[in-house]
């Protein structure tokens, strides 16, 4: 698969501190790639470096084979960025906002008018397109900012904390829009977020950052295998068990948690599950359900952040 962005040994220093240290990863064409990390981890700095707003202290970046330091303007012609604050002109109308950005990008006037209507329609803003943005709700402003980022049909869409200031309903709306955009336009989405559920829901691959350093990279499945050894099985019981001493000593069973009629068991591999179930039945357990539990990004994330803190300490 072709890469949209290639980052190699990237470091960036502000006056007194490193915002990024020796960062390397590739973003594939057409995927939703999430950069996950707490505030100050270096996510926004990465977007700015990739778009040529900063010059890196060390390392190399390539966007469609171009170098942002010398070809920033050409790169920005093909990218769209939703900044952390919606940053729309509140004294102008939604239509004026979009027309202004379209003209700055050099879209011909006739196609710009058509595209503006089309995108206002898509984001359900057409009915209030000629009202000043100052009168809009936060959710509407965020939709307008997203519309602006997509106006030029960018090959890479950067989303910097797209739902951080939104209420759950508006955040849900934005999530649905992002999903439908990535399905329709087949463009690369580079998502920066500190919201685990957002990254888990939307992304194909995740890179976890802390203090400007890459802690992990991969799909959720890959990260699960890498950092959360074993598989969690959730077992529903009809009634609480009196004792299950033997499962504790079973080969392949790593951990066990029982709360009333719920049992969570961590096993080394899937092959252990039939033996585990049969052992429990032998001990008189009345099993009414067995489920494989999905690996949670939250587990991986907090484990990595804790490891990073320990490492730093």
């Amino acid at each position: 698969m072709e890469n949209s962005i290639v980052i190699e040994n990237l470091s960036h220093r502000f006056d007194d501190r490193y915002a990024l240290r020796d960062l390397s990863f590739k973003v594939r064409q057409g995927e939703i790639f999430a950069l996950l990390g707490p505030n100050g981890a270096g996510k926004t700095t990465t977007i700015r470096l990739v778009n040529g707003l900063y010059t890196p202290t060390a390392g190399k970046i390539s966007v469609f084979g171009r170098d942002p330091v010398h070809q920033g303007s050409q790169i920005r012609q093909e990218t769209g960025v939703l900044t952390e604050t919606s940053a729309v002109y509140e004294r102008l109308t939604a239509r004026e906002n979009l027309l202004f950005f379209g003209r700055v990008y050099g879209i011909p006037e006739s196609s710009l008018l058509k595209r503006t209507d089309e995108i206002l329609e898509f984001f359900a803003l057409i009915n209030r397109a000629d009202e000043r943005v100052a009168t809009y709700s936060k959710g509407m402003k965020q939709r307008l900012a997203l519309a602006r980022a997509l106006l030029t049909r960018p090959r890479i869409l950067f989303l910097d904390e797209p739902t951080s200031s939104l209420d759950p309903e508006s955040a849900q709306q934005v999530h649905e829009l992002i999903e439908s955009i990535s399905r329709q336009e087949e463009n690369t989405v580079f998502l920066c977020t500190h919201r685990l559920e957002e990254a888990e829901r939307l992304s194909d691959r995740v890179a976890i950052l802390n203090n400007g350093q890459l802690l992990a990279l991969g799909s959720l499945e890959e990260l699960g295998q890498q950092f959360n050894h074993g598989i969690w099985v959730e077992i529903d019981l009809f009634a609480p068990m009196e004792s299950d001493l033997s499962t504790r000593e079973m080969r392949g069973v790593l951990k066990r948690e029982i709360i009333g009629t719920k049992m969570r068991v961590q096993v080394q591999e899937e092959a252990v599950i039939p033996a585990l179930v049969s052992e429990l039945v032998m001990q008189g357990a009345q099993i009414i359900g067995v489920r494989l539990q999905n690996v949670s990004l939250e587990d991986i994330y907090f484990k990595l952040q804790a490891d990073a803190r320990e490492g730093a300490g």
Partner: protein
Amino acid sequence: MNWKTIFTIAKKDLKEARQNKAVWLPVLIVPAIFVVILPLGMILGFSSATGIAQNPMSDPDFALFIERMPAFLTDLISGLDATQSGIVLILGYLFAPFFLILPLMFSTVIAAESFAGERERKTIEALLYTPTTDAELFTGKVLAGFIPAVLITLVSFIGYTIVLNAAAYPVMGRIWFPLPSWYPLVLWVSPAISLLGIAVTVLISAKAQTFMGAYQTSGSLVLVVLALLAGQATGVIYLSVVVGLLIGLVIFVVDAVLMVYAVRTFNRAKLLASTR
């Protein structure tokens, strides 16, 4: 440099500035005071002055000023009576530097809105992610302050000419304004001082966090105009055509130096420093 982009940015900044009361209120009120209220009030005052005591020419300081003034000014009032001389010297000559407040004020208020205001509202970041170059952004924003400042000054000058000639016609009996020294002032010094206002505001905007902060600090530039006014009133400077051209030249040189520094403060990394 893509001039279409530059003018798009300038037009957007002006559209935004028009929506800000703190920008357009002074743009309406100050010319109204300088162009209509002050000259009309003075002409009416001079025309209705009946006794010697009420005539400006009888003021001892003013008499001293007349006594010391150079030949080109004496020529202006030769053959005129006391009221006519008062109108020509005060509204036609001494008042001239006041007029420079207009381009200075318009350029600083719009530049403060365009540079510091956009940073204050954090809209600058979205603009920095567009394909525009730093030079195009800078030029667009400078033009947003420069073009209206020069145009409003020109329109105000035309308005002042009409008001002065019309209101003073019963006293003067002829079209007497503008005097020659006003041409370099309006066409040469005024653009120079507009650029000065913008350059200083851009430099201040690099530090100031708000539109008001930048506007108020750059407002101290009015001291340059007041110095000119005081110099003229005390007889240190006489604003002839040549002196006007020279003052304009000096300000343009200062503009050039300040603009070089202003351009250096205007790059993407520095503009983002405050939003990091």
